[in-house]
């Protein structure tokens, strides 16, 4: 085993033994809030959409959100819809369509202990949240509700912001099944 792997496994096991999932999430949220706030400020989609309407050569809004305003609001509240606000940088099958929820894995799968991180804007309370995208592992592809959104997503060389790699990679059963989006905390204080 590579020394880094051994270190990672040891620290992960130790952390898991010492803390509950909730306290870990709270701690990570606090740690990330300060360091990630500035580079992760959300883009202004409204102004972009207005610009697109005014300028036929302007950047088009992402195709996954190319729906009417009323429907868009409904979609952003529906965890089984790719437009759900927490899914702003998710790439995979939505666990909420696979027996889980937006923040829980389906029965019989295993949670990935390592994740990628994003910041999503909740239009309901107008707050930005840091979210952890975990994969659920140990069964073959769910195949339902494929969703690919990439706000502030980065290529593989910036691993903690990348949603292409199989985050089940470190699981004992590393097959990829589906993905969830777990709120870690506010991205603003």
């Amino acid at each position: 085993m590579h020394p880094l792997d051994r270190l990672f496994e040891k620290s992960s096991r130790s952390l898991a033994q010492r803390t509950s999932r909730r306290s870990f999430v709270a701690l990570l949220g606090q740690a990330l809030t300060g360091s990630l706030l500035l580079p992760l400020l959300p883009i202004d989609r409204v102004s972009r959409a207005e610009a697109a309407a005014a300028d036929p050569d302007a950047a088009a809004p992402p195709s996954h959100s190319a729906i009417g305003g009323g429907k868009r609001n409904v979609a952003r509240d529906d965890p089984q819809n790719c437009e759900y606000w927490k899914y702003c940088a998710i790439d995979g099958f939505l666990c909420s369509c696979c027996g889980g929820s937006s923040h829980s894995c389906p029965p019989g799968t295993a949670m990935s202990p390592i994740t990628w991180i994003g910041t999503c804007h909740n239009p309901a309370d107008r707050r930005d949240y840091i979210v952890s995208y975990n994969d659920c592992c140990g069964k073959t592809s769910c195949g339902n509700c494929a969703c690919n959104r990439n706000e502030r997503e980065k290529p593989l060389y910036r691993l903690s912001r990348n949603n292409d790699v199989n985050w089940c990679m470190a699981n004992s059963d590393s097959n990829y099944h589906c993905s969830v989006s777990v709120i870690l905390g506010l991205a603003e204080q």
Partner: protein
Amino acid sequence: MRTSQSCAALLALLVNGAAFAAPPLPAEQLSIEPLPSKSAHWVYVIDEAFFNEIDARVRLFDGDSYRHLGQIDAGFSPGVIQSPDGGTTAVATTYYARGGHGARTDVVEFTDNATLAVAGEIVLPPKRAQIPPTYFNVAYSADGHFVYVAYITPAASFGVLDPATKSVLAEIDTAGCVLVIPSGPNRVSSLCDSGRLLTVTLDSAGHEAARALSEPLFDPDADPVFIQGVPSPGGYTFVSFLGQVHSVDFSGAQPSIQPPWSLVGTAERGRWRPGGSQPGAINAALGRLYVTMHRGGEGSHKEGGTEVWVFDLKTHQRLARWPMAGSRLGAVTAVQVSQDKAPLLFAAGDHGAVGIFDALTGQLRHVDKNLGQTPWLFLNP
């Protein structure tokens, strides 16, 4: 009326009689179809089979006859590459002992391109980077003596393999830099979080002899590059999210970074962008770069192109804009161009159909809807 009925009955009798009189069809012999002679217009289509991801496959397709010539199995989230002599396809993949679960085996499988039969394998440590296919998941040294495999656990490193003895020679820690960009007989470069290239030089046993970091190739915060580098004369070309073209000459001991240039004019910058799983392709002889382009903003870098833009690599002039609207492909997420002087452009739509275009004129020749559910990468033979 009665007369015509009688004539019809007589005619039927004569026809049937003639049929019965013909000799029976000969017995057939079951055989294995041999591959025809290799063509520059063949393409290897890597289907990730994302909706049942343990069953990826590589389909060999003839862009002239539009025939499916055969298949190479590719397991889970594979990397695929051709050997320098074109004789072998190397597939770096993962299998689970019970299909969807069970013990994990990472392996590089070698397929004889003359027969499409598996001709050997090297079992890896369970560290292979399980990522979408690129040119740099698995790679050969220029002389074919080494095979390199990218590892992410999430610690980043790479394996050095000997395809002759079918053995793993070494593992090289890359300190957070990812992928295996091969150059020369013994050099491997990786893309780093800082936007630099790490280049590791190997000794004859495949162990690290030296390493060096390049000057920054790109700004990963302001304008990251796609990891899907495109083979170009002397090295590889990387296109950025905002449409900058970064070419690197890997022919020397260390990478030589060429001055970047832009696919888009000032008015287009940030509005028209490259996107998809294989956003660029180059025909080296013609010096032409093909890029999938769409109108989009931040976060749209995986959207396919509504147009394919064609550029002259020397003058950097845009030669053509080919709208994909009439092609029935949808948005184009992957492109490849054959390397002959009458080239074909292969283009994968976002619903899995593959279009074959004349790469000189942009004229659509054919659409095939049976080349897989998620064809994310094309390789030339």
